[in-house]
């Protein structure tokens, strides 16, 4: 428990340092002004989202290959964190686009494919919710997780494949002055660490949830009738990972 608290505190502290760098160390952009400072967190969050979805892909493949409950938990944790970081990416991007492009949204290839990415993994989370807990949820979600990852390279290469308004890569093209580059790399490292910590914490939560009896997690849509209760056999405990325990 304290381990997770320590990791969470460390990740938050690092993000605060990154924020200080973004606002006080990095120079103001000559063309865009202070709005450009959104870039550091926006791109870092996008990379953290890609990394989280890569975790989902690895967890999904491992689950289907090895039937490992741990791999499935890892995929679950990655999907949730990935959706959060995709949301951050989209919201930050829209806030930047309003003053720079004059509109929150345009149907640009990269924006559209990122929105699709969000929808795909939101669908992944829905499948988890609607499938029978255990094997079925894990299998179906793994299939969605593997198919969904197809969109990640599409988002990444969209600026090369289509004519888009979205700025292209700035790191490989050496377009950033050293202070900006340092701030960006530092923010990216911190954000990746934050994503890793969140996935680890979520993994722990999923482990604990797997040990909970099913009845406390999924409320029955029907009120139990007296006759059915009397006729019912003694309740079995069914964990979320599907194993049935005799009372």
């Amino acid at each position, binding site marked *: 428990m304290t381990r997770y608290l320590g990791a969470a505190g460390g990740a938050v502290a690092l993000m605060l340092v990154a924020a200080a760098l973004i606002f006080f160390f990095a120079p103001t952009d000559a063309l865009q002004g202070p709005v450009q400072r959104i870039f550091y967190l926006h791109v870092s969050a996008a990379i953290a989202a890609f990394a989280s979805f890569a975790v989902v892909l690895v967890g999904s493949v491992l689950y289907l290959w090895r039937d490992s409950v741990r791999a499935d938990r890892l995929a679950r944790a990655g999907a949730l964190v990935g959706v959060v970081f995709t949301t951050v990416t989209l919201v930050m991007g829209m806030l930047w686009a309003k003053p720079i492009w004059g509109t929150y949204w345009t149907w640009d290839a990269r924006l559209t494919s990122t929105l699709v990415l969000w*929808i795909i993994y939101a669908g992944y989370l829905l499948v988890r919710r609607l499938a029978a807990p255990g094997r079925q949820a894990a299998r*179906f979600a*793994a*299939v969605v997780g593997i*198919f969904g990852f*197809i969109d990640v390279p599409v988002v990444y290469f969209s600026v090369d494949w289509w004519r888009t308004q979205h700025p292209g890569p700035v790191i490989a093209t050496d377009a950033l002055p050293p202070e900006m580059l340092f701030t960006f790399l530092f923010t990216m490292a911190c954000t990746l660490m934050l994503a890793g910590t969140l996935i680890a914490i979520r993994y722990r939560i999923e482990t604990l949830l797997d040990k909970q009896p099913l009845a406390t997690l999924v409320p029955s849509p029907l009120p139990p009738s007296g006759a059915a209760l009397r006729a019912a056999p003694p309740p079995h405990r069914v964990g979320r990972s599907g194993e049935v325990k005799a009372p």
Partner: protein
Amino acid sequence: MTRSIAVAVAIARKDLVAEWRTRELVPALAQFVVLALVIANFGFQIDSRSAPAIAPGVLWLALVFAGLVAFGRAFAAEREQATLEAVLLTAAAPAAIFAGKALAAGLLLVLCEAVLLPALALFFGVPISFGLVFAVLLATVGMAALGCLFAAMVAQLRARELLLPLLTLPLWIPFIVAGGQAVQVAMGADGTMDQALKLLLDFDILFVVLTSLAARFVLDD
């Protein structure tokens, strides 16, 4: 391999015979696609000048939603009669069973296209060229593979009608992008038909291979 093909053909034949005997799905879908054109007319205020710009979008919207219904129905009857378990208990490979279901559902969608394309030619002035028909058929292959995979999945879930479009539509986007390009080229826009057809073929190969690999995990439970 030949055995798997025989299984797939037998399953597809069974589904097509069932559809021929009831004649439920295809007439309803054919009516639906024509109705979609009527609704599009009211939604877009179509005249002869705006029709070429709007027709490709209308074609793919009608086709996508007809496809969702067709593929959703592919597993609905099996679920209602609880026959899927019986089929899965046989020695046949799940991938072969899945291929048969997808083949039959895809062919039923082709029948709807046989109504949709002439209707588009009649009402929207879309020229029916060989390339356009080929593009629609190529898109149907990939859409059937993906649509049936997720239809097989959601047939086993709660709230299945809700979830099928949410899972399927995002992954159909490549077919709509390339297919839309093909229709625009057919209607005189810039670009080449070959490029759109090649893109469709690439995605067909990708998704047919991926879905046949994944079928085992969705069906064999």
